């Protein structure tokens, strides 16, 4: 039987979280090795395990994969969550890149200079309600189907719902005017694999806090 994928990252969401979500949604059990100290990180680098000296790194199917996008693409294709042909795939890719852009802004918020934080939050809220959420609400409205692409569950639904949870954590009122997105969120959250992931004790990581930011700074030296 194949070994479970092994995730190498610090014990927090960061750039590994979408990978955790996707594996979980696909029903794939995985293990995690947490980078807790600068020495842990140095060891990984010196091992030659990290192609560009960065994490996330995922050991899967005999490979040591880096670059979160590459990792996600592999998992999605392997588990049939990437559409039925190249055109559906292009659509999925377009949607998830938009999700990734907004996710990146939210991801970097805890490490932005304190003086810039308020302005950044305002920008995130503006982009959320004026650029990203309207685009996805419109997609769902245009075809009236339960999933974003091809009337079938794909990674696009998983990544978008992950983002909706983040948006809700930032400010629940941001989702007010997006009924179809709220319905998608509920629907995807009810899928057995996703439900399990979201339960207490599931592999989902909690929101970032000051302490874990400080810890990351020490380990990754930024």
């Amino acid at each position, binding site marked *: 039987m194949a070994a479970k994928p092994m995730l190498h990252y610090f014990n927090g969401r960061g750039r590994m979280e979408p990978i955790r979500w996707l594996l979980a949604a696909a029903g794939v059990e995985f293990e995690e090795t947490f980078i807790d100290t600068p020495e842990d990180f140095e060891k990984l680098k010196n091992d030659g395990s990290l*192609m*560009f*000296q960065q994490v996330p790194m995922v050991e899967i*199917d005999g*490979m040591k*994969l*880096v*670059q979160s*996008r*590459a*990792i996600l*693409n*592999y998992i999605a*294709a*392997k588990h049939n969550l990437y559409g039925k042909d*190249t*055109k559906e*795939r*292009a*659509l999925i*890719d*377009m*949607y998830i*890149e*938009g999700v990734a*852009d907004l996710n990146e802004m939210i991801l970097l918020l805890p490490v932005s200079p304190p003086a810039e934080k308020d302005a950044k939050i305002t920008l995130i809220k503006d982009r959320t309600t004026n*650029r*990203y959420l309207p*685009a996805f609400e419109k997609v769902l409205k245009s075809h009236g189907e339960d999933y974003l692409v091809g009337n079938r569950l794909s990674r696009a639904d998983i990544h978008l719902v992950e983002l909706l949870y983040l948006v809700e954590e930032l400010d629940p009122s941001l989702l007010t005017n997006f009924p179809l997105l709220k319905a998608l969120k509920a629907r995807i959250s009810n899928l057995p694999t996703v439900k399990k992931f979201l339960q207490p004790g599931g592999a989902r990581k909690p929101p970032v806090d000051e302490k874990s930011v400080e810890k990351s700074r020490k380990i990754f030296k930024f």
Partner: protein
Amino acid sequence: MAAKPKLCYFRGRGRMESIRWLLAAAGVEFEEEFIETREQYEKLQKDGRLLFGQVPLVEMDGMVLTQTKAILSYLAAKYDLYGKDLKERVRVDMYADGTLDLMMMIALAAFKTPGEKEENLALVVKKAKTCYFPAFEKILKDHGEDFLVGNKFSWADVQLLEAILMVEELDASVLSDFPLLKAFKTRISSIPTIKKFLQPGSQRKLPPDSHYVKTVRKVLQL
């Protein structure tokens, strides 16, 4: 006969250049519409062709595609430059993502203040020499083949060449410690479609200058 892909972007490299390279490498002729004014941009947004209100935009095969990586992945798959199976594909993705990260640092540096710009570009050269180029030199050394993945020309090779040339523009000696990359550069540059693209008069764009930066700032209201 299929219509030529139509690219819509500023008259410069930015986030569209890798797309131009890939189309050219695949021997695909394409047309370009250049954004020069704010009015043009607002019209594009009102037209509803920009899913998230942003360019690059590529119209091809009946699709209106935005998001650079979505476009690049679609092209790579369509023109058989994405490896032969999932395991080769993930390697192409890993390598392409790495080089894209490096090239984006250069693209964004153009928009910083003069002092910051120099600092950022120096950092890019350092990262190229200490992290990215050693990684690719090692890949070529380990398998001894002419191309990065699967002994066959792929998107990864196109982007690595693009990145090498871009970094050489900052520091002509950057390949001095990388004999295999030097040979790689010569070899890939000699491929007929690439050779043609590297000649004066092709659709390859120049490094960002102050006019380009000014236009982009004006159009995007940065």
